[in-house]
């Protein structure tokens, strides 16, 4: 019976949701919010890993694209995320997320470039299913957790501090909460999801505080066959302004609407491989900021039943 629902559960970690970087010259967030927020069954372990590439170019003021770059010609990153979720008791699961930036770089208009890499932040979250109905084919769960930095100090290369835009971590603790709603429609071919995630960051040791972030996704999923699933996501990301030494940084924070198509292929009903992309269809940036162009991700997921009920 459980196998029947596996395709629906796999989207889990399609998009990880750890930290938002949204300053003037950065390449945006490694992720968004996805159906990963759903609960894993008791004694089941879900393992997911994904690679995400994001590219940014062109400066924006509000919704307007500036004709010429101010400083950065392009910015990009390549991120590897790992997420684990384990059902500890009925209706309750614990998640761990962490990731690594292989590369987070800026190329300037004068031809020079800077590059950072390293571990990003981790997240540990406890999730609880507050509503489940077989007749309504509906699930609702809530989660709350902490974000923690793998390094409290900013990254230096050759004794030179990297700009905040390409630091791999916020270097600060944070908190996160999420809401997950899933509605399966008859005859189990399609589902709707509402996934919302809020993140709050504490100031780091340099007294720099990344803006709070709220990401809400509406997702429609359709199973063509047991092996082939397609999904379309509309995701709205609000990022508040950063605070630098108690002073609001006016060139930070944004409101962006993404459209994210996704295709998933199941291999032997065990491994689930998916490909997705983020296309920003509406962008509003506070002040002047480098705009996100596109993002693509490849994702691999597998569920393990560790103990028979």
């Amino acid at each position: 019976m459980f196998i029947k629902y596996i395709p629906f559960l796999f989207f889990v970690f399609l998009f990880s949701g750890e930290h938002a970087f949204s300053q003037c010259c950065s390449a945006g967030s490694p992720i968004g919010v996805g159906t990963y927020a759903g609960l894993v069954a008791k004694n089941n372990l879900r393992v997911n890993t994904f690679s995400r590439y994001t590219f940014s170019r062109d400066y924006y003021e509000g919704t307007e694209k500036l004709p010429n770059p101010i400083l950065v010609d392009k910015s990009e990153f390549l991120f590897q995320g790992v997420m684990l979720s384990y059902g500890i008791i009925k209706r309750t699961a614990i998640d761990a997320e962490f990731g690594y930036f292989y590369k987070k770089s800026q190329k300037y208009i004068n031809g020079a470039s800077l590059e950072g890499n390293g571990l990003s932040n981790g997240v540990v979250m406890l999730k609880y299913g507050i509503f489940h109905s077989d007749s309504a084919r509906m699930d609702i769960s809530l989660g709350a957790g902490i974000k923690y930095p793998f390094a409290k100090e900013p990254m230096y290369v050759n004794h030179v501090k990297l700009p905040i835009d390409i630091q791999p971590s916020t270097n600060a603790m944070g908190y996160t909460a999420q809401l997950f709603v899933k509605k399966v429609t008859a005859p189990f071919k399609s589902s709707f999801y509402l996934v919302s995630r809020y993140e709050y960051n504490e100031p780091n040791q340099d007294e720099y505080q990344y803006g709070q972030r709220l990401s809400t996704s509406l997702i429609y999923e359709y199973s063509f066959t047991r092996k082939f699933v397609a999904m379309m996501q509309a995701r709205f990301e609000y990022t508040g302004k950063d605070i630098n030494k108690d002073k609001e940084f006016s060139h930070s924070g944004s409101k962006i609407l993404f459209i994210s198509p996704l295709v998933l292929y199941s291999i032997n009903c065990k491994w689930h491989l998916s490909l997705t992309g983020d296309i920003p269809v509406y962008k509003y940036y506070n002040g002047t900021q480098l705009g996100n162009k596109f993002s693509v991700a490849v994702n691999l997921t597998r569920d393990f039943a560790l103990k028979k009920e």
Partner: protein
Amino acid sequence: MKNNILFLTFFFLVVAFSACKKDKTQPSDEANSQPLVYTSLIAQDTSILVGVFVTISATATGDELTYTWSSDYGSFLGSGASVQWVACHAADHVINCEVKDKYNNSATKSVVIHVY
């Protein structure tokens, strides 16, 4: 139950890993062959336009010096005693340069750059 304990332990380790802390090194008592003397930190220009690079140079003497550069905002290019710095938004920014010798003696100087 055993599986639960195993995985809770794993999650705990993930959190604990983040608590690793870098040790601060104390200055050495060794006699310096050449004492650290940090003479100056000078910006080519202390008032610059947005997106324009400025050269900042530290002058110091001592044994096997390292220069560590930081600022509250902006980007550095290069390393060593002289670097270039730039910011893409107008504000006053503090540039710090710490000079350290091989005995871990150190000194720091700052310069304020007005970006308009």
